[in-house]
């Protein structure tokens, strides 16, 4: 996967008319968008459709891309807007993460069996607790802790301030820590496990 700064360069090239750069953008953005959209919608076909719409919106608006700006928060903001509009139109409910589906993504398959079992159990609990959080906290936590966006980028995607994102993420983190009774580093460790697992899945 291309690094974010390479994506900005690719987007800049695409804005200048280099058609081949769109493939680089797709390869760098689409898997991340798909992961995020799948967690939000729990609908594989819908998430794929939204990825397609998001990429085509980026294509249509390429000439308006500001030189030197960040493409990742912009792409996430478009995806989120399309998802919310689609749900409003279709009167779909915003679904929380499905602990059973997501549990498998949280655990590395190479871990010993007892660790695998324990991690899967705690990961399942983590996701159940995540689903109980208010939407604003859950989305902020998702963008920052799972998608790796900076606080400033997440604030731009959500149309709010950096302090608000910090507060929401912190509250989500504290709520999860309180509910799971875990040590401060445990949640990050679980999320790191998930990232490793997801990267392995992305490369396979």
């Amino acid at each position, binding site marked *: 996967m291309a690094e974010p700064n390479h994506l900005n360069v690719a987007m800049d090239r695409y804005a200048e008319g280099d058609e081949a750069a769109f493939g680089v953008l*797709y390869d760098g953005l689409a898997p*991340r968008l798909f*992961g995020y959209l799948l967690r939000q919608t729990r609908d594989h076909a819908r998430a794929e459709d939204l990825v397609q719409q998001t990429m*085509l919106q980026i294509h249509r*608006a390429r000439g308006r*891309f500001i030189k030197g700006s960040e493409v990742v928060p*912009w792409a996430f903001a478009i995806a989120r807007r399309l998802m919310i509009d689609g749900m409003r139109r279709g009167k779909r409910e915003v679904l929380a993460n499905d602990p059973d589906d997501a549990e498998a993504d949280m655990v590395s398959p190479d871990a010993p069996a007892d660790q695998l079992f324990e991690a899967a159990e705690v990961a399942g609990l983590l996701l159940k607790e995540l689903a109980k959080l208010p939407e604003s906290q859950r989305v902020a936590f998702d963008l920052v802790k799972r*998608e790796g966006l900076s606080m400033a980028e997440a604030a731009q995607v959500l*149309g709010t301030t950096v302090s608000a994102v910090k507060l929401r993420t912190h509250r989500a983190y504290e709520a999860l820590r309180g509910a799971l009774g875990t040590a401060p580093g445990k949640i990050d460790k679980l999320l790191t496990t*998930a990232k490793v697992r997801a990267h392995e899945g992305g490369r396979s």
Partner: protein
Amino acid sequence: MSSTRLPDELRKRVLEAATREPSPDRAAVRRSIQLASAVAVLSCLGLFVALGGVHLGTRPTQVVALTTVGWLLIAFAATWGAFGRGRSMLGRPAGWLLVVALATAPTFLSWFLMWTMMWPEASAPVPAFGIHLACFTTTIVFSLSPLVAFVVARRGSDPVHPRATGAALGAAAGAWAGVMIDLHCPVSATAHVLVSHVAPIVFLAIAGAWLGRRVLGIRN
């Protein structure tokens, strides 16, 4: 960051769809914005000249000059605040845009009141309702070309807060119209300026918010 395996078929489909639907690159967008801006400026000035240009009436020249310079600066600031996006594709924060939308009209009025208080002779009797209405309508007409130019330049580009962006752009367009109407209309009664020169800015901010949701937002 997370990533998930996507079917190769989707990649092919997206790239093919992008090839089938050509989109303007940066140079083409720059040209269309320049064209829209030129049309807006020319139509606004054309209308101003067609209506008779500057009418000082009984107003001292200094008051008109000071008011116009101040209102021009406010219009530039409002345009910079509403239309500029800084270094982000997601534009300025909603709070910033709301300040532009809400503060432009009171700033205009305060600037006007400051100078008319220093030159009380600039005040005039309040005209008939018909004059208020005519000036209000003219101000709205003056604002149309800048508003259309702003909307053309920013259409379908705001995934986060299109209403706030629309409101700020509406206020900025209203500010330019305020400058034109203040030069054109010789009536300097505070009530008239409030109702016919400043209130349209508020009206345009509201109209801009309505328009923003429909035109500036991302649509399927």
